[in-house]
Protein backbone atom coordinates (compact mmCIF):
# COMPACT_ATOMS: atom_id res chain seq x y z
CA UNK A 1 0.00 0.00 0.00
CA UNK A 2 1.14 3.55 -0.61
CA UNK A 3 2.11 5.40 2.52
CA UNK A 4 -0.13 8.33 1.58
CA UNK A 5 -3.21 6.12 1.53
CA UNK A 6 -2.25 4.59 4.87
CA UNK A 7 -1.78 7.98 6.42
CA UNK A 8 -5.17 9.06 5.20
CA UNK A 9 -6.76 5.91 6.62
CA UNK A 10 -5.00 6.46 9.92
CA UNK A 11 -6.31 9.99 10.15
CA UNK A 12 -9.83 8.78 9.48
CA UNK A 13 -9.61 6.15 12.20
CA UNK A 14 -7.97 8.30 14.83
CA UNK A 15 -10.78 9.69 16.93
CA UNK A 16 -8.90 12.68 18.21
CA UNK A 17 -6.83 13.29 15.15
CA UNK A 18 -5.62 16.84 14.95
CA UNK A 19 -3.71 18.77 12.39
CA UNK A 20 0.01 18.52 12.99
CA UNK A 21 1.41 19.37 9.63
CA UNK A 22 4.88 20.00 10.93
CA UNK A 23 5.13 16.49 12.34
CA UNK A 24 3.75 14.95 9.14
CA UNK A 25 6.22 16.91 7.05
CA UNK A 26 9.08 15.80 9.27
CA UNK A 27 8.00 12.15 9.09
CA UNK A 28 7.61 12.35 5.35
CA UNK A 29 11.04 13.86 4.93
CA UNK A 30 12.68 11.19 7.06
CA UNK A 31 10.74 8.14 5.89
CA UNK A 32 9.67 9.02 2.38
CA UNK A 33 11.44 5.90 1.09
CA UNK A 34 9.61 3.59 3.52
CA UNK A 35 6.03 2.42 3.84
CA UNK A 36 4.62 3.78 7.06
CA UNK A 37 1.43 4.56 8.92
CA UNK A 38 1.23 7.61 11.14
CA UNK A 39 -1.50 7.77 13.76
CA UNK A 40 -1.99 11.08 15.49
CA UNK A 41 -4.09 11.87 18.49
CA UNK A 42 -4.14 14.32 21.35
CA UNK A 43 -1.35 12.45 23.15
CA UNK A 44 1.08 12.62 20.30
CA UNK A 45 1.65 10.25 17.42
CA UNK A 46 2.70 6.68 16.69
CA UNK A 47 4.60 5.81 13.60
CA UNK A 48 4.37 2.25 12.28
CA UNK A 49 7.20 1.50 9.91
CA UNK A 50 6.47 -1.50 7.73
CA UNK A 51 9.14 -4.07 6.98
CA UNK A 52 11.01 -3.91 3.74
CA UNK A 53 13.82 -5.97 2.24
CA UNK A 54 16.43 -4.49 4.55
CA UNK A 55 14.59 -3.50 7.70
CA UNK A 56 12.19 -5.17 10.09
CA UNK A 57 8.90 -3.56 11.03
CA UNK A 58 9.00 -1.21 14.00
CA UNK A 59 6.90 1.28 15.96
CA UNK A 60 7.95 4.73 17.15
CA UNK A 61 6.20 7.03 19.59
CA UNK A 62 6.55 10.64 18.58
CA UNK A 63 5.65 13.76 20.46
CA UNK A 64 3.38 15.97 18.39
CA UNK A 65 4.73 19.27 17.18
CA UNK A 66 2.18 20.97 19.43
CA UNK A 67 3.41 18.90 22.37
CA UNK A 68 6.98 19.70 21.46
CA UNK A 69 6.16 23.39 21.48
CA UNK A 70 4.70 23.07 24.97
CA UNK A 71 7.80 21.23 26.13
CA UNK A 72 10.03 23.91 24.65
CA UNK A 73 7.98 26.62 26.33
CA UNK A 74 8.20 24.77 29.65
CA UNK A 75 11.96 24.60 29.24
CA UNK A 76 12.03 28.37 28.81
CA UNK A 77 10.06 29.07 31.98
CA UNK A 78 12.80 27.27 33.90
CA UNK A 79 15.59 29.44 32.49
CA UNK A 80 17.50 31.85 34.76
CA UNK A 81 16.96 34.71 32.29
CA UNK A 82 13.73 36.58 33.09
CA UNK A 83 13.14 37.39 29.42
CA UNK A 84 13.24 33.69 28.59
CA UNK A 85 10.77 32.92 31.39
CA UNK A 86 8.42 35.61 30.11
CA UNK A 87 8.71 34.28 26.55
CA UNK A 88 8.04 30.76 27.79
CA UNK A 89 4.91 31.87 29.63
CA UNK A 90 3.78 33.82 26.57
CA UNK A 91 4.16 30.71 24.44
CA UNK A 92 1.96 28.78 26.88
CA UNK A 93 -0.87 31.33 26.70
CA UNK A 94 -4.24 29.72 26.17
CA UNK A 95 -2.84 26.17 25.98
CA UNK A 96 -5.13 23.66 27.66
CA UNK A 97 -2.37 21.77 29.41
CA UNK A 98 -2.16 21.36 33.21
CA UNK A 99 1.62 21.78 32.99
CA UNK A 100 1.12 25.30 31.68
CA UNK A 101 -1.08 26.14 34.64
CA UNK A 102 1.40 24.57 37.07
CA UNK A 103 4.24 26.60 35.60
CA UNK A 104 2.24 29.80 35.89
CA UNK A 105 1.29 29.18 39.51
CA UNK A 106 4.94 28.51 40.33
CA UNK A 107 6.08 31.69 38.63
CA UNK A 108 3.62 33.83 40.57
CA UNK A 109 6.44 33.84 43.13
CA UNK A 110 9.12 34.81 40.63
CA UNK A 111 11.39 37.65 41.79
CA UNK A 112 10.67 39.60 38.58
CA UNK A 113 7.45 41.60 38.53
CA UNK A 114 7.11 41.20 34.77
CA UNK A 115 7.34 37.42 35.08
CA UNK A 116 4.69 37.43 37.82
CA UNK A 117 2.43 39.59 35.65
CA UNK A 118 2.78 37.22 32.70
CA UNK A 119 2.14 34.22 34.96
CA UNK A 120 -1.04 35.87 36.24
CA UNK A 121 -2.22 36.55 32.67
CA UNK A 122 -1.59 32.93 31.78
CA UNK A 123 -3.71 31.74 34.70
CA UNK A 124 -6.50 34.16 33.84
CA UNK A 125 -6.30 33.04 30.22
CA UNK A 126 -6.09 29.31 30.89
CA UNK A 127 -9.26 27.36 30.07
CA UNK A 128 -9.16 25.80 33.54
CA UNK A 129 -7.61 28.74 35.37
CA UNK A 130 -10.75 30.45 36.62
CA UNK A 131 -10.90 28.68 39.98
CA UNK A 132 -7.21 29.27 40.71
CA UNK A 133 -7.50 32.91 39.63
CA UNK A 134 -10.47 33.37 41.96
CA UNK A 135 -8.73 31.61 44.85
CA UNK A 136 -5.61 33.74 44.43
CA UNK A 137 -7.54 36.96 43.94
CA UNK A 138 -6.13 37.63 40.49
CA UNK A 139 -7.90 40.49 38.78
CA UNK A 140 -7.90 40.96 35.04
CA UNK A 141 -7.61 44.68 34.42
CA UNK A 142 -8.17 44.07 30.72
CA UNK A 143 -11.55 42.44 31.24
CA UNK A 144 -14.43 44.28 29.64
CA UNK A 145 -16.17 46.80 31.82
Amino acid at each position, binding site marked *: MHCGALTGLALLLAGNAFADKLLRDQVHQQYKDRSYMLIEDANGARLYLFANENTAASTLSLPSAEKSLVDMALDKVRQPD*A*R*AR*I*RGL*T*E*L*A*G*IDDPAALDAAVTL*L*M*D*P*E*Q*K*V*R*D*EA*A*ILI*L*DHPKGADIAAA*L*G*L*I*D*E*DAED
Partner: protein
Amino acid sequence: MRTRNLCLGAGIAALAAGPVAVLADDYDEDEIPWEVAEVFFELNDTDGDLGIHALVDGEAWKRLQIEDADERKMLGVSVRSRLRRQGLTEIFFESAEPTFDELAPETFFMRFPEGTYEVEGITLEGDEIESETEITHAMPAPPVPTVNDMPAAQQCDDEEPGFDAPFIVADEYVIAWDEVTMTHPSLGYPQNADGLVVLNYEVVVEAEFETDNGEEFTSVFSVILPPDVTEMTIPEEFMDQAEEFKYEVLVREESWNQTAFESCFLTEDDGD
Protein backbone atom coordinates in the same frame (compact mmCIF):
# COMPACT_ATOMS: atom_id res chain seq x y z
CA MET B 1 6.53 53.51 31.65
CA ARG B 2 3.87 51.47 33.36
CA THR B 3 3.82 47.87 32.33
CA ARG B 4 1.57 46.28 34.90
CA ASN B 5 -1.80 45.34 33.57
CA LEU B 6 -2.95 43.12 36.34
CA CYS B 7 -3.58 43.52 40.02
CA LEU B 8 -2.43 40.56 42.00
CA GLY B 9 -4.48 39.71 45.04
CA ALA B 10 -3.17 40.41 48.50
CA GLY B 11 -2.04 36.83 49.02
CA ILE B 12 0.10 36.72 45.93
CA ALA B 13 1.44 40.19 46.52
CA ALA B 14 2.60 39.06 49.94
CA LEU B 15 4.24 35.98 48.43
CA ALA B 16 5.96 38.00 45.77
CA ALA B 17 7.22 40.84 47.91
CA GLY B 18 10.13 38.99 49.42
CA PRO B 19 13.69 40.13 49.90
CA VAL B 20 14.61 38.86 46.46
CA ALA B 21 12.10 41.14 44.75
CA VAL B 22 13.60 43.15 41.92
CA LEU B 23 12.15 46.36 40.57
CA ALA B 24 10.16 45.82 37.40
CA ASP B 25 11.90 48.71 35.66
CA ASP B 26 15.30 47.03 35.72
CA TYR B 27 15.60 46.70 31.97
CA ASP B 28 13.65 49.80 30.92
CA GLU B 29 16.84 51.36 29.61
CA ASP B 30 16.74 48.94 26.71
CA GLU B 31 13.51 50.28 25.22
CA ILE B 32 13.06 49.41 21.58
CA PRO B 33 11.55 51.98 19.20
CA TRP B 34 8.59 51.10 16.97
CA GLU B 35 9.30 51.00 13.26
CA VAL B 36 6.14 53.08 12.74
CA ALA B 37 4.14 54.82 15.45
CA GLU B 38 1.87 57.54 14.12
CA VAL B 39 -1.26 59.06 15.60
CA PHE B 40 -2.92 61.59 13.33
CA PHE B 41 -6.14 63.21 12.16
CA GLU B 42 -8.09 62.68 8.96
CA LEU B 43 -10.46 65.29 7.61
CA ASN B 44 -13.01 64.35 5.00
CA ASP B 45 -13.50 67.80 3.57
CA THR B 46 -16.32 66.66 1.30
CA ASP B 47 -18.57 65.05 3.92
CA GLY B 48 -17.42 67.32 6.74
CA ASP B 49 -16.09 64.96 9.37
CA LEU B 50 -12.93 64.41 11.37
CA GLY B 51 -11.43 61.31 12.92
CA ILE B 52 -8.31 60.22 14.72
CA HIS B 53 -6.27 57.37 13.29
CA ALA B 54 -3.18 55.46 14.35
CA LEU B 55 -0.74 53.13 12.66
CA VAL B 56 1.73 51.16 14.74
CA ASP B 57 4.17 48.55 13.46
CA GLY B 58 7.26 46.92 14.85
CA GLU B 59 8.62 43.89 16.63
CA ALA B 60 6.09 41.23 17.68
CA TRP B 61 4.17 42.49 20.70
CA LYS B 62 1.56 41.28 23.14
CA ARG B 63 0.52 44.57 24.69
CA LEU B 64 0.03 48.04 23.29
CA GLN B 65 -0.87 51.30 24.96
CA ILE B 66 -1.23 54.84 23.70
CA GLU B 67 -1.03 57.74 26.12
CA ASP B 68 -2.15 61.24 25.26
CA ALA B 69 -0.23 64.47 25.80
CA ASP B 70 -1.34 64.46 29.45
CA GLU B 71 0.07 60.93 29.87
CA ARG B 72 -3.41 59.52 30.23
CA LYS B 73 -4.06 56.14 28.67
CA MET B 74 -6.41 56.40 25.69
CA LEU B 75 -5.94 52.94 24.16
CA GLY B 76 -4.92 49.60 25.61
CA VAL B 77 -4.66 46.39 23.64
CA SER B 78 -3.86 43.12 25.38
CA VAL B 79 -3.33 40.13 23.13
CA ARG B 80 -4.60 36.91 24.66
CA SER B 81 -4.48 33.13 24.33
CA ARG B 82 -3.28 31.64 21.02
CA LEU B 83 -2.84 35.08 19.48
CA ARG B 84 -0.63 36.04 22.43
CA ARG B 85 1.62 33.08 21.61
CA GLN B 86 1.92 34.39 18.06
CA GLY B 87 2.17 38.10 18.85
CA LEU B 88 1.01 41.03 16.73
CA THR B 89 3.18 43.34 14.67
CA GLU B 90 0.99 45.91 12.94
CA ILE B 91 -2.21 47.57 14.04
CA PHE B 92 -4.21 50.36 12.45
CA PHE B 93 -7.38 51.97 13.73
CA GLU B 94 -9.78 54.69 12.72
CA SER B 95 -12.04 56.38 15.21
CA ALA B 96 -15.68 57.10 14.58
CA GLU B 97 -16.08 60.13 12.34
CA PRO B 98 -19.27 61.95 13.31
CA THR B 99 -20.26 64.80 11.03
CA PHE B 100 -19.68 68.36 12.15
CA ASP B 101 -23.41 68.62 13.02
CA GLU B 102 -22.83 66.04 15.75
CA LEU B 103 -19.30 66.98 16.77
CA ALA B 104 -17.97 70.42 15.91
CA PRO B 105 -14.34 70.52 14.78
CA GLU B 106 -13.43 72.77 17.72
CA THR B 107 -14.84 70.20 20.15
CA PHE B 108 -13.05 67.39 18.35
CA PHE B 109 -9.69 69.15 18.57
CA MET B 110 -10.24 69.97 22.25
CA ARG B 111 -10.81 66.27 22.83
CA PHE B 112 -7.40 65.45 21.33
CA PRO B 113 -5.02 68.23 22.37
CA GLU B 114 -1.76 68.91 20.57
CA GLY B 115 1.39 67.51 22.12
CA THR B 116 3.50 64.42 22.47
CA TYR B 117 1.64 61.13 22.50
CA GLU B 118 3.42 57.98 23.65
CA VAL B 119 3.00 54.63 21.96
CA GLU B 120 4.16 51.87 24.27
CA GLY B 121 4.28 48.13 23.87
CA ILE B 122 5.60 44.93 25.40
CA THR B 123 7.39 42.33 23.27
CA LEU B 124 6.88 38.60 23.67
CA GLU B 125 9.97 38.58 25.91
CA GLY B 126 8.63 41.36 28.11
CA ASP B 127 10.85 44.10 26.70
CA GLU B 128 9.44 47.56 26.28
CA ILE B 129 8.84 49.14 22.89
CA GLU B 130 8.24 52.85 22.94
CA SER B 131 8.06 55.78 20.55
CA GLU B 132 6.72 59.28 20.79
CA THR B 133 4.65 60.99 18.14
CA GLU B 134 3.77 64.66 17.88
CA ILE B 135 0.11 65.48 17.36
CA THR B 136 -0.65 68.81 15.74
CA HIS B 137 -3.90 70.49 14.73
CA ALA B 138 -2.45 71.68 11.43
CA MET B 139 -4.72 70.23 8.76
CA PRO B 140 -3.81 70.50 5.08
CA ALA B 141 -6.05 72.55 2.83
CA PRO B 142 -8.19 70.27 0.66
CA PRO B 143 -6.83 69.36 -2.77
CA VAL B 144 -8.84 70.75 -5.70
CA PRO B 145 -8.84 67.99 -8.29
CA THR B 146 -9.93 67.87 -11.90
CA VAL B 147 -10.51 64.95 -14.23
CA ASN B 148 -9.22 65.69 -17.71
CA ASP B 149 -9.35 69.39 -16.74
CA MET B 150 -13.04 69.19 -15.82
CA PRO B 151 -13.85 70.57 -12.36
CA ALA B 152 -14.74 68.08 -9.67
CA ALA B 153 -18.42 67.37 -9.08
CA GLN B 154 -19.80 68.70 -5.80
CA GLN B 155 -22.83 66.39 -5.63
CA CYS B 156 -22.35 62.72 -6.55
CA ASP B 157 -25.68 61.40 -5.30
CA ASP B 158 -27.98 61.32 -8.31
CA GLU B 159 -31.03 61.34 -6.04
CA GLU B 160 -30.05 64.66 -4.51
CA PRO B 161 -30.61 68.06 -6.10
CA GLY B 162 -27.53 69.53 -7.72
CA PHE B 163 -26.16 66.22 -9.00
CA ASP B 164 -23.33 67.36 -11.22
CA ALA B 165 -21.13 64.36 -12.01
CA PRO B 166 -19.35 65.22 -15.26
CA PHE B 167 -19.72 62.95 -18.24
CA ILE B 168 -16.30 62.41 -19.77
CA VAL B 169 -15.38 60.36 -22.82
CA ALA B 170 -11.67 60.15 -23.51
CA ASP B 171 -8.89 57.77 -24.41
CA GLU B 172 -7.24 58.33 -21.06
CA TYR B 173 -8.36 59.72 -17.74
CA VAL B 174 -6.07 61.94 -15.71
CA ILE B 175 -6.83 63.13 -12.20
CA ALA B 176 -4.81 66.26 -11.43
CA TRP B 177 -4.67 68.82 -8.63
CA ASP B 178 -2.68 71.85 -7.66
CA GLU B 179 0.12 71.42 -5.18
CA VAL B 180 -1.15 71.91 -1.61
CA THR B 181 0.98 74.44 0.22
CA MET B 182 -1.34 75.89 2.85
CA THR B 183 -3.12 74.69 5.93
CA HIS B 184 -6.89 74.46 5.93
CA PRO B 185 -8.68 77.82 5.64
CA SER B 186 -11.25 77.19 8.37
CA LEU B 187 -10.28 74.13 10.43
CA GLY B 188 -7.54 73.30 12.88
CA TYR B 189 -4.65 75.53 13.81
CA PRO B 190 -2.95 77.40 12.28
CA GLN B 191 -5.42 78.22 9.50
CA ASN B 192 -4.51 79.52 6.05
CA ALA B 193 -0.83 79.30 6.90
CA ASP B 194 1.71 78.64 4.22
CA GLY B 195 4.76 76.44 4.51
CA LEU B 196 2.83 73.18 4.73
CA VAL B 197 5.21 70.27 4.19
CA VAL B 198 3.53 67.52 2.19
CA LEU B 199 4.60 63.96 2.91
CA ASN B 200 2.66 62.44 0.04
CA TYR B 201 -0.57 62.43 -1.93
CA GLU B 202 -2.91 59.50 -2.25
CA VAL B 203 -5.38 58.86 -5.07
CA VAL B 204 -8.12 56.28 -4.69
CA VAL B 205 -10.58 55.46 -7.49
CA GLU B 206 -13.51 53.09 -7.03
CA ALA B 207 -15.59 51.40 -9.70
CA GLU B 208 -18.75 49.53 -8.77
CA PHE B 209 -20.14 47.02 -11.24
CA GLU B 210 -21.80 43.65 -11.54
CA THR B 211 -19.69 40.62 -12.31
CA ASP B 212 -20.68 38.11 -14.96
CA ASN B 213 -22.53 36.06 -12.35
CA GLY B 214 -24.55 39.06 -11.22
CA GLU B 215 -22.71 39.86 -7.99
CA GLU B 216 -21.88 43.43 -7.05
CA PHE B 217 -18.18 44.14 -6.99
CA THR B 218 -16.15 47.20 -6.03
CA SER B 219 -12.83 47.51 -7.77
CA VAL B 220 -10.32 49.88 -6.16
CA PHE B 221 -7.30 51.58 -7.68
CA SER B 222 -5.11 53.21 -5.05
CA VAL B 223 -1.74 54.86 -5.32
CA ILE B 224 0.51 56.90 -3.03
CA LEU B 225 2.51 59.60 -4.79
CA PRO B 226 5.50 61.71 -3.75
CA PRO B 227 4.90 65.41 -2.97
CA ASP B 228 6.14 66.63 -6.35
CA VAL B 229 3.64 64.55 -8.32
CA THR B 230 0.22 66.18 -8.77
CA GLU B 231 -1.48 64.10 -11.42
CA MET B 232 -2.23 60.45 -12.04
CA THR B 233 -3.43 58.63 -15.13
CA ILE B 234 -5.89 55.90 -14.26
CA PRO B 235 -4.94 52.63 -15.97
CA GLU B 236 -7.06 51.74 -19.00
CA GLU B 237 -7.73 48.23 -17.66
CA PHE B 238 -9.29 49.75 -14.56
CA MET B 239 -11.39 52.24 -16.54
CA ASP B 240 -12.71 49.50 -18.81
CA GLN B 241 -14.49 47.86 -15.89
CA ALA B 242 -17.29 50.35 -15.33
CA GLU B 243 -18.95 53.59 -16.37
CA GLU B 244 -19.32 55.31 -12.98
CA PHE B 245 -16.34 56.17 -10.84
CA LYS B 246 -15.83 57.69 -7.42
CA TYR B 247 -12.46 59.10 -6.55
CA GLU B 248 -10.62 60.67 -3.67
CA VAL B 249 -7.51 62.81 -3.58
CA LEU B 250 -5.86 62.95 -0.18
CA VAL B 251 -2.98 65.11 0.95
CA ARG B 252 -0.88 63.97 3.91
CA GLU B 253 1.39 66.44 5.69
CA GLU B 254 4.56 65.68 7.60
CA SER B 255 2.89 64.77 10.90
CA TRP B 256 0.55 62.49 8.91
CA ASN B 257 -2.52 64.73 9.29
CA GLN B 258 -4.49 64.30 6.12
CA THR B 259 -7.31 65.97 4.23
CA ALA B 260 -9.34 64.16 1.62
CA PHE B 261 -11.57 65.46 -1.14
CA GLU B 262 -14.06 63.10 -2.79
CA SER B 263 -15.84 63.37 -6.10
CA CYS B 264 -17.03 61.32 -9.07
CA PHE B 265 -17.40 61.16 -12.83
CA LEU B 266 -19.16 59.12 -15.52
CA THR B 267 -17.73 57.73 -18.72
CA GLU B 268 -20.98 56.84 -20.46
CA ASP B 269 -24.21 58.79 -20.61
CA ASP B 270 -27.01 56.77 -19.02
CA GLY B 271 -29.54 58.57 -21.25
CA ASP B 272 -31.44 60.33 -18.45
